[in-house]
């Protein structure tokens, strides 16, 4: 089996994880014996990833910076088989959720995770959550620096942080190292964007107070350029200000975005900088040897030279039109010529977005061992990624993914839908999301048509908590409940691309569950009629506005 080319746990990491498992085992034992009340137990189980859903407990497993070894992926498959019903659900925050966990099994499940250096620590609760990254990190052609180095540094600093384990509300951090933001850094509590300043130094733009949920807000720049070794001192300052001054009187106003909104970004900056002035010359300044040691573990695999143009691939493109479409939508430029980044679509027509069975997970692991240096990524679009595939191997990878049902040539297209679990699983939801995604997916299943429609992000949430990120969908769909009837509100023009980050605007009254497919169809038809040369759906919308789309939708439904 190939060595991993990302952070490898040492005895310190493993000891802490083992001790955490034993602490959790004791907490569960005390809950089962009645020594702990549910109220007392709740924050404890949440910070171990255990969440109470509609029908059962759900275990949310962290996949730090979305990077998995095949050994880890196989273990996830095994855990899903043993403790769940043989499948898992990849989420928009690089987590894997198992939906049918029994409380008494939870300690054994997290102990099994620890065997492969994985955990469910701080995947729920009012704490610093799993830090997410660009899923193409370390492979993307447009990357300035691998963001995962910094995610790992943040992972260690934030794990069981004694001061920040009872925050006003959850706290999500995302890091990108590319000018093309694939980590949605402007809609996180803190977003970090690595960039090179005019003096040639690489540092962070620190963005604060973004978020979706009930009050969607685009994050604001708190610091335009932060030297890299100051990262933890600065984050600790932001968190301390938030921990002290964030609202705790109303759960819906407790995120840092509300604090920033209420006191203003200037005042927030003043508070954070004052705190930072006293913090920055402390032991929180990162030792260059620590940075170097962690960065070294993320060194790219020693990719041998492989041909950039391969006769057999060119021939197959002509022979098999679907393969040609797949190459276009499901592969992306790699930093090294002769390689591509391959996205395995977890959205075959009509399937629940992000679901994978244990057998499928094992299948992807086999493919990654054979063709992608034993590494797999999880994207916030709920797909899996093979980061280092030689162009020569693309036909074989395509065929192998096809056998798993993961070769749908739809990445970035209308059927590559993000959807939350919705009313089928979630206690908070007002409406179903997955069946809506499935119906849209079936309606637009024709690949040639999807590719003609081009890039179009459809995002569906089953309630205003917005786990399906509907605010930033080119087409956003929000399930609402009106007197017991599930209705769907449509918004247009949302975007998370850097420089274009925008929240979608609602086009009018919500439509019924039986009308939603027709409504989306009307939106697409409007675009196809009105699009200019090279325009994507969202470009046409920006140019002509909502009116033409609106008219067509409400004439249709």
């Amino acid at each position, binding site marked *: 089996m190939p060595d991993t080319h990302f952070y490898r746990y040492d005895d310190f990491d493993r000891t802490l994880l083992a001790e955490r498992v034993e602490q959790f085992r004791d907490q569960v034992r005390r809950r089962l014996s009645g020594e702990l009340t549910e109220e007392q137990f709740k924050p404890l189980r949440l910070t171990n990833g255990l969440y109470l859903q509609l029908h059962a407990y759900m275990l949310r497993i962290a996949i730090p910076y979305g990077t998995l070894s095949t050994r880890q992926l196989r273990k996830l498959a095994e855990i899903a088989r043993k403790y769940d019903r043989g499948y898992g659900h990849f989420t928009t925050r690089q987590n894997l959720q198992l939906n049918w966990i029994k409380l008494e099994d939870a300690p054994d499940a997290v102990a099994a995770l620890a065997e492969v250096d994985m955990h469910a620590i701080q995947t729920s609760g009012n704490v610093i959550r799993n830090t997410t990254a660009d899923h193409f990190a370390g492979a993307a052609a447009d990357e300035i620096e691998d963001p995962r180095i910094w995610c790992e540094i943040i992972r260690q600093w934030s794990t069981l942080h*004694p001061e920040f384990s009872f925050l006003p509300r959850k706290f999500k951090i995302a890091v990108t190292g590319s000018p093309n933001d694939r980590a949605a850094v402007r809609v996180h509590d803190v977003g970090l964007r690595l960039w090179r300043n005019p003096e040639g130094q690489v540092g962070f733009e620190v963005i604060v107070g973004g978020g979706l949920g009930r009050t969607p807000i685009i994050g604001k720049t708190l610091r335009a350029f932060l030297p890299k070794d100051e990262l933890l001192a600065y984050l600790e300052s932001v968190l301390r200000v938030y921990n002290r001054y964030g609202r705790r009187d109303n759960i819906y106003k407790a995120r840092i975005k509300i604090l920033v909104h209420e006191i203003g970004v200037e005042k927030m900056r003043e508070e954070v900088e004052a705190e930072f002035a006293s913090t920055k010359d402390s032991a*929180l300044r990162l030792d260059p040897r620590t940075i170097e040691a962690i960065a070294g573990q993320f060194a790219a695999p020693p990719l041998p030279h492989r041909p950039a143009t391969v006769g057999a691939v060119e021939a197959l493109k002509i022979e098999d039109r679907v393969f040609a479409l797949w190459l276009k939508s499901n592969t992306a430029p790699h930093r090294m010529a002769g390689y591509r980044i391959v996205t395995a679509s977890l959205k075959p027509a009509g399937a629940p977005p992000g679901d994978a069975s244990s057998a499928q997970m094992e299948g992807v692991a086999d493919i990654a061992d054979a063709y992608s240096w034993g590494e797999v990524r999880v994207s916030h679009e709920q797909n899996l990624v093979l980061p280092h595939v030689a162009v020569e191997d693309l036909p074989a990878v395509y065929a192998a993914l096809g056998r798993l049902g993961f070769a749908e040539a739809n990445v970035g297209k209308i059927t590559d839908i993000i959807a939350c679990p919705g009313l089928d699983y979630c206690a908070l939801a007002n409406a179903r999301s997955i069946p809506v995604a499935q119906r849209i997916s079936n309606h637009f299943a024709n690949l040639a048509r999807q590719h003609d429609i081009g890039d179009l992000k459809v995002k569906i949430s089953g309630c205003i908590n917005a786990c399906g990120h509907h605010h930033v969908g080119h087409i956003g769909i929000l399930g609402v409940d009106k007197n017991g009837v599930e209705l769907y509100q449509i918004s247009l023009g949302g975007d998370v691309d850097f420089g274009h980050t925008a929240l979608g605007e609602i086009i009018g009254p919500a439509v019924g569950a039986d009308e939603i497919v027709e409504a989306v169809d009307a939106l697409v038809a409007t675009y196809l009629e009105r699009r200019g040369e090279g325009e994507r759906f969202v470009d046409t919308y920006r140019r002509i506005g909502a009116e033409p789309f609106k008219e067509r939708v409400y004439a249709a439904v």
Partner: protein
Amino acid sequence: MPLYREGAIVPVANDGLAALPLAEWLQAPTQAVALANTDQLDLLKTHLGRLKLIVLHFPKYTDGRAYSQARLLRGRLGYRGELRAIGQVLRDQLPFLLRCGFDSFESDQPGFGPALARARTLFSVVYQGAEDDRAPAWLLRLRRRDARAAEQIGPLAAE
């Protein structure tokens, strides 16, 4: 409310220091003050030397503001007297409380004393520095690296 300190698993006798709320205490500073978790700490600065006890409040155990107050008192203002946690104080908070510099606790939770005796050793590894002077993992890694380098250089230097 039973009062605990490390070293004994049963409650200890209260030492009788009466902690006044900040506003009252400012009128006539004594050896003990009780802060709300929204109180500013700057007001204490000039009197820190005379304080023997600062009491911090957890109105609910999920309200974590006093952790920041504790770290600022210990780390920033250099307070060395007793730092007590009161309010809803439960045993599962102890690893965090100890790391933030608390050294006495009011709690009526059964089993609190034995849990306190074990709380410092529940985790033998910590990832970040705090107010308990434990060396975080990154520092231990660097020390180990230096020690290994010294071992390798050692025999050469002897020749």
